[in-house]
C-alpha cells in the first residue's frame, strides 16, 4: 500500500495525505476541504455504502488521539478501517480486475443518484477484503455539479480498468504489465495499436478504443469552455445530469460485464491440470490430501500463504478456518480460484505472482507502493509449498536452500513442503535432460536444510516418490 514517512504522507491528492503510522491508516485533510469532506461523511448514501462494506469506514480522530509526531501538520485527522492484506492491481487476475471495475461503477451509480460522484477511478483506489472489493479512496467522493454531464474520471476508468481487461482477454497482454502504473494504465492509442484493425470490430471496441484513439490526434484548442451554463443550474439541470450520467454508467457496466463473462470461458495448460495429473495415482492424491489436512489442523493458522496454488484445492481446505492468500503464475487459474472462492464465500485472496520475481516496490523514489515481500512480512502463520519447489528450482534456477529459506521466513509458525525428486516425471519434463546439474537437490539435502530451520513435525513418503513435510518454525 502507499508508504509514507512521517514527514510526508502520500502527495498526489490535493485534498490531503494518507499515512500508514504504526499500524493505523490516518488521513490528513486540508483545512479548505474539511467542510465538504465531513458533509460527505455524514451523508446517508455514504453511511449505507460503508455499512455494506463497499466503501472503507472512516471516522474523525479526536485531538487526544493524534500521534505526537504528526501534530505539527495542519489539517484535520481521520482514521480509516484497515484492510488486513493489501495487494496491488498488477498482482490481480482478470476476474479480480473485472470485479473491482464493476464495484467502482456500482458505487458511482449509487453516488450519482444521491448527488455525489467519484472524482477519480483507478484500481489503486480499490482493495480487497478476501474476495470483496472495497473503495478506500474516500476523498475521491465529491458533490455532483449540475450541468456537468460528463464524468471527468471516465477516461481514467477506461485506461486503468476497461482497456487492461480488454487487452488481457483479446490480446493476452498481462495485467501485470498494463497496470504496472495503476494510475496511468493502458492508453487508448496504445490499445489501438495493440488491436490493430480489429479495433473497428464491434461497438465496444469502436466506442472505447478506435474512436477515442482517432480523436486524440486532434487538439481541442481554439474553443474556450464557457465559464457558466447558459441557464442557472436548477433542479432540472441536476436531473438532466443525473439522467445522462446514469445512462452512461449503466452502458459502461454492460460493457465491462460482457468482458467479465468471457473470463470463465478461457482455458490454459494449468487450468486443465487436475484432469491431466496422472503422475499422482488416486491413492497418492488421497495420501497427500490427508497429510495436508492433518498438518493444517495441527498448526491451526489464522493466515495461510499458498504458493503455487494452481486449482486452489488446498487453499480451499485452509479457508475453512483461516484467511488465505493464494499465489500462482497462471492468470487463468487464479481467475478460477477467485470466482469459485467468491461463489462459495471463502476468504481467499488469489494473486498472479511468480515468487521468483515478486512484485517490487514502485512509484516515486521506489517507495510509494511496497513490494510483495514487504507487505507479506509477518502476516502469515503457515506457508504451503506443494508441488512447486521443482518449478522454483528448475525453471526459476533458485537453489534449494534459498527456496526453503523463503518458505520458512514467510510462515511464522510453519511450512508444509512437498519435495519432488529428480527422477519424478514432472521434474524430468521441465529439466529436459539437464537433471545432472541439480546435484544439490536431493531428499537428504532437503531434510538437512529443513532441520536446520526448525523441527520436522510430520513426514510422509508418498508412493510416487514425493515426500511431504510439515516443518514447525516456532521457537
Amino acid at each position, binding site marked *: 500500500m502507499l508508504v509514507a514517512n512521517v514527514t510526508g504522507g502520500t502527495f*498526489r*491528492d*490535493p485534498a490531503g495525505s494518507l499515512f500508514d503510522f504504526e499500524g493505523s491508516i490516518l488521513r490528513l485533510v486540508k483545512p479548505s476541504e474539511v467542510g465538504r469532506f465531513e458533509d460527505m461523511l455524514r451523508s*446517508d448514501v455514504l453511511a449505507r455504502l460503508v455499512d455494506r462494506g463497499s466503501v472503507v469506514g472512516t471516522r474523525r480522530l479526536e485531538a487526544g488521539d493524534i500521534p505526537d509526531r504528526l501534530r505539527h501538520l495542519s489539517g484535520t485527522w481521520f482514521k480509516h478501517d484497515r484492510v488486513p492484506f493489501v495487494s496491488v492491481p498488477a498482482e490481480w487476475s482478470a476476474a479480480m480486475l473485472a470485479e473491482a471495475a464493476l464495484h467502482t461503477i456500482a458505487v458511482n451509480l449509487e453516488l450519482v*443518484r*444521491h*448527488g455525489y460522484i467519484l*472524482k*477519480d477511478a483507478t484500481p489503486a483506489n480499490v482493495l480487497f477484503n478476501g474476495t470483496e472489493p472495497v473503495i478506500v479512496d474516500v476523498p475521491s467522493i*465529491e458533490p455532483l*455539479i449540475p*450541468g*456537468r*454531464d*460528463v*464524468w*471527468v*474520471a*471516465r*477516461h*481514467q476508468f*477506461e*485506461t486503468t480498468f476497461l482497456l487492461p481487461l480488454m487487452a488481457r482477454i483479446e490480446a493476452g497482454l498481462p495485467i501485470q504489465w498494463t497496470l504496472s502504473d495503476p494510475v496511468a494504465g493502458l492508453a*487508448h*492509442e496504445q490499445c489501438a495499436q495493440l488491436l490493430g484493425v480489429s479495433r473497428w470490430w464491434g461497438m465496444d471496441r469502436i*466506442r*472505447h478504443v478506435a*474512436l*477515442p*484513439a*482517432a*480523436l*486524440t*490526434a*486532434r*487538439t*481541442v484548442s481554439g*474553443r474556450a*469552455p*464557457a*465559464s*457558466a*451554463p*447558459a*441557464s442557472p443550474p436548477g433542479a*432540472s439541470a441536476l*436531473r*438532466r445530469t*443525473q*439522467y*445522462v450520467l446514469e*445512462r*452512461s454508467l449503466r452502458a459502461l457496466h454492460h460493457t465491462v460485464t460482457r468482458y467479465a463473462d468471457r473470463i470463465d470461458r478461457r482455458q490454459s495448460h494449468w487450468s486443465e491440470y487436475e484432469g491431466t495429473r496422472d503422475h499422482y495415482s488416486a491413492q497418492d492424491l488421497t495420501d497427500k490430501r490427508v497429510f495436508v489436512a492433518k498438518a493444517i489442523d495441527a498448526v491451526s493458522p489464522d493466515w495461510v500463504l499458498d504458493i503455487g496454488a494452481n486449482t486452489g484445492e488446498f487453499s480451499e481446505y485452509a479457508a475453512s478456518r483461516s484467511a488465505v492468500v493464494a499465489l500462482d503464475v497462471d492468470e487463468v487459474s487464479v481467475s478460477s480460484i477467485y470466482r469459485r472462492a467468491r461463489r462459495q464465500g471463502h476468504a481467499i485472496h488469489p494473486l498472479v505472482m511468480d515468487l521468483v520475481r515478486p512484485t517490487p516496490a514502485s512509484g516515486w523514489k521506489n517507495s510509494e507502493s511496497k513490494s510483495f515481500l514487504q507487505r507479506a512480512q509477518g502476516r502469515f502463520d503457515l506457508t504451503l509449498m506443494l508441488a512447486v519447489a521443482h518449478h522454483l528450482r528448475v525453471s526459476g534456477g533458485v537453489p534449494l536452500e534459498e527456496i526453503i529459506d523463503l518458505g520458512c521466513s514467510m510462515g511464522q509458525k510453519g511450512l508444509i513442503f512437498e519435495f519432488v525428486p529428480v527422477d519424478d516425471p514432472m521434474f524430468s519434463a521441465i529439466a529436459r535432460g539437464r537433471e545432472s546439474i541439480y546435484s544439490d537437490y536431493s531428499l537428504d539435502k532437503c531434510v538437512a536444510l529443513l532441520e536446520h530451520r526448525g523441527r520436522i513435525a510430520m513426514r510422509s513418503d508418498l508412493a510416487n516418490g514425493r515426500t511431504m513435510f510439515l516443518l514447525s518454525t516456532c521457537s
Partner: protein
Amino acid sequence: MVMSENRRRALSRASAALASFLAVVSVQPAVAYVDPGTGSMLVQMMIAGIAGAMFYFRELRLQFMTWVRRVVLQRTEPAGTTAETGEKPFQRSDD
C-alpha cells in the same frame, strides 16, 4: 451588409442555442486533478450531448402528455404521473 431584422433575430437565437449547447457539454476540470483525456472525453461529450437532448425530449413529451390529458381529455390527474403511458418519470433520489 445590412441584415434584415428578422434574420438578425433568427441568427442571434441560433447562436444562443449553440452557445447553450456548448456550455452544457463543455468541461470545467477545475476541481479534478485527473487528466480527463482528450479523445475519450470528446466521445463522452458527444454521447452526453445526445443523451441530454433525449432527456429534454422526454421531459417535453411528458409535459405534452400531461397537457393533453388536462386540456384535451379534461382529466384532472396530477402532473408527472403516467398511468396512461405506463412509464415512470425520471426518478430523483428521495431517501
